[in-house]
């Protein structure tokens, strides 16, 4: 369970939010909304430990994240605005490198690429892929990871309606498998699972 207590963040001496307390337990999803510049990405990066908060405490399974960074990171999957694909490598190599840390078989990677709709172009260097296809490749990691907590920053950007349906079904499956999900999106979510909404603009500004 992820617990956040009294979190505050500032950027260039401008207070983005303060006194933010929220918790996400197994099987729960949290949808963070807010206007442009409200601090959604900053909040996600703080939750991952990439950015330092100016106040507040984050704990994972009852332990402070800052003290148990490695344990926390092994349960965490973060996909940011950047796709983290290497443009000179093909889809398969990219996925293999990204997941180099996990014992993933070639077949599993093929299945994931096929499922993502990249099966036929998996041999192409990713610089030839469209924005949406690059995003799909980035999201293919969701199929292979065993992480419990997924933190996704604008995962729907650049996806076509089919890919959105595909992503929805995987997020739903993750939640029904007692996974946890925190995401930002400006679109209205089309998932059938129930997702709590956290509005950064209103009570925390």
């Amino acid at each position, binding site marked *: 369970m992820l617990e956040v207590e009294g979190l505050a963040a500032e950027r260039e001496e401008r207070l983005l939010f303060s006194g933010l307390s929220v918790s996400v337990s197994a099987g729960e999803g949290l949808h963070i909304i807010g206007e442009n510049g409200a601090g959604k990405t900053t909040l996600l990066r703080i939750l991952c430990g990439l950015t330092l908060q100016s106040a507040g405490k984050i704990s994972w399974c009852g332990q402070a994240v800052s003290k148990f960074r490695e344990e926390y990171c092994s349960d965490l999957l973060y996909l940011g605005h950047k796709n983290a694909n*290497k443009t*000179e*490598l093909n889809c398969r190599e990219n996925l293999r490198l990204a997941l*180099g*840390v996990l014992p993933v078989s070639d077949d599993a990677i093929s299945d994931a690429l096929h499922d993502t709709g990249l099966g036929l172009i998996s041999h192409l260097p990713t610089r030839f892929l469209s924005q949406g296809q690059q995003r799909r490749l980035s999201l293919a990691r969701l199929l292979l990871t065993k992480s419990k907590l997924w933190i996704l920053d604008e995962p729907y950007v650049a996806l076509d309606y089919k890919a959105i349906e595909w992503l929805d079904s995987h997020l739903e499956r993750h939640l029904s498998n007692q996974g946890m999900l925190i995401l930002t999106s400006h679109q209205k979510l089309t998932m059938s699972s129930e997702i709590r909404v956290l509005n950064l603009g209103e009570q925390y500004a």
Partner: protein
Amino acid sequence: MHKMLWALFNRDMTLFMQRKQDVVTVLGFFLIAVALFPLGISSDPDLLRTIAPGAIWIAALFSTVLALDRLFSEDLDDGTLEQQMLMPVPISLMLLVRLVAHWVITSLPIVLLAPLMGLQFGLAFNEIAILTLSLLIGTPILVLLGAIGAALTVGLKSSGGLVTLLLLPLYVPVLILGTSAVSSTMNGVDVTAHFSLLGAALIVSLVLSPFAVATALKITLD
């Protein structure tokens, strides 16, 4: 954990195989810089023998700085750096692996080419051996110290010049120890002290540099 670090090492090797031109550029720079000394100064064999250690060491030093430019910048731009910072291993250990890979890719070829450059300047066999050994111990120090500069400036637009300015003061002692080891050999002086000091510097930078680089990168990514 060692599996993950090994995978990370392999990652850098795979990427290197995809863009050998980067390394060829660095090696080409090294070869040309060394070759320019006889053309620019004199073809007098005695003089060339005297300046050989300095010429080769300075060329190796600037090649290292040149190669540092690519160490983090691309990974920062495409988002792989933040993924690496989230790997479930200590960040400093992760960085140490990446620095070792960087050294193997960009500096080891220079160390291996150094004997050839020594021959070009007419160095004797034992002098070439000392030169190569000093580079073998010295270039990792240059990479480890240089990575701190690279990490501090990675987010900036034109970081190349700034890195050089930041690093040169730190590089001076290594340069002096490396070149004077070879010159001392030429004059028949014992060089144990030089290598003790170089070895000590290598151990200190191996231990401290990954932590400094980790801190610098955290500031950059914050």
